[in-house]
């Protein structure tokens, strides 16, 4: 196992845009840093909840949301470092097993936001295998455009999750695209999208 065997080559913005093409009823939570920028760059949406902190919490936020709305596809877009900080959460998600939840890990093998240090994933920890071992019924490891198209159809379909999709992206500089940092506003906007109007 090692970095040489991995193909970190997909361009992150194009990969996320592909996954979000025709997103339909999808509800989205993004992990702090670049995944928030990537999802925002693909098109801001009332059904996007962007985290700017709370590292390790994205997948679990997706769990609470998926349990509340079992009829809608819920997708978490996060990075390898963010997921690693809450790795036990994969066990929690696997045990509760919401069928409509997908965790998309934008994995470049590095901590891109903090100076580009090699992440555990880059050093050989296989996140897809961890999810599989935890009991995720569906795990995908995507490093090609064809794989992205297959992943897109899976994410849009609630019913066979929870699934974890590792998307191998290139470790390269991407211009920032910054969504709102006003968490209270983003929250209220998200809830209003679901019909919960602030009182």
């Amino acid at each position, binding site marked *: 196992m090692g970095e040489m065997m991995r193909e970190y080559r997909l361009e992150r913005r194009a990969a996320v845009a592909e996954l979000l093409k025709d997103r339909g009823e999808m509800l989205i939570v993004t992990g702090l840093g670049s995944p928030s920028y990537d999802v925002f760059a693909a098109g801001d949406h009332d059904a996007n909840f962007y985290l700017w*902190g709370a590292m390790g919490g994205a997948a679990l*936020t997706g769990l609470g949301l998926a*349990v*509340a709305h079992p009829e809608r596809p819920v997708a978490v877009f996060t990075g390898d470092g963010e997921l690693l900080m809450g790795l*036990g959460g994969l*066990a*929690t998600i696997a*045990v509760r097993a919401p069928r409509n939840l997908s965790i998309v890990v934008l994995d470049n093998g590095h901590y891109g936001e903090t100076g580009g240090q090699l992440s555990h994933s880059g050093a050989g920890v296989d996140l897809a295998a961890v999810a599989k071992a935890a009991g995720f019924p569906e795990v995908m490891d995507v490093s090609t455009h064809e794989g992205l198209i297959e992943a897109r159809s899976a994410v849009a379909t609630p019913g066979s999750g929870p699934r974890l999709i590792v998307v191998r992206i290139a470790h390269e500089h991407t211009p920032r695209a910054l969504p709102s940092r006003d*968490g209270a506003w983003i929250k209220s906007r998200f809830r209003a999208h679901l019909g919960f109007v602030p009182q």
Partner: protein
Amino acid sequence: MEIARSTEAVGEDAGSPWAPIIFEALKDADVKQVTYVPDAGHTRLIGMCSDAPEMDAMVLTTEEEGIAVAAGAWLGGQRSAMLMQSSGVGNCVNMLSLLASCRMPFLTIVTMRGEYQEFNPWQVPMGQATQQALELMNVIVTRIDRLEDLDSLVRSAAAMAFDGDQAVAVLLSQRLLGAKKWVK
């Protein structure tokens, strides 16, 4: 197994008189998602929530997960509460920033260790720092020492959390719960 969280008191806890009082308050507050890290003091309440068809009880590997789950539940229009032990409060500190940054409600029921008649010195540092750790992150803390206060204070905490958009912790004191008995 970590001794501090072992369930040596399972039989004893079947009598926990606080459990049905809290359960009814959570039910009346329309709490749908109940997260927990296994804890001897909460044994009966965890069982009641797990058996309740209107509730979704989820076991966590660590307490900070429950804060993120509560945030996700609220985004989706549901109410969530977490059951934990005082030692778990220390695991929550950074994740509590999620609630503050987004002004989201949160309710947790915390069984206290490390105080009244505590025999295990390892429980004392976090037990003694529990209230301050919560308050450091602007969580409103209600401490309950007497069973007769429980019903009104838990209902009040739920109202402040879900109607008042606040993060609220209810501490069940070790005196209320009864000091842990060390039985083989």
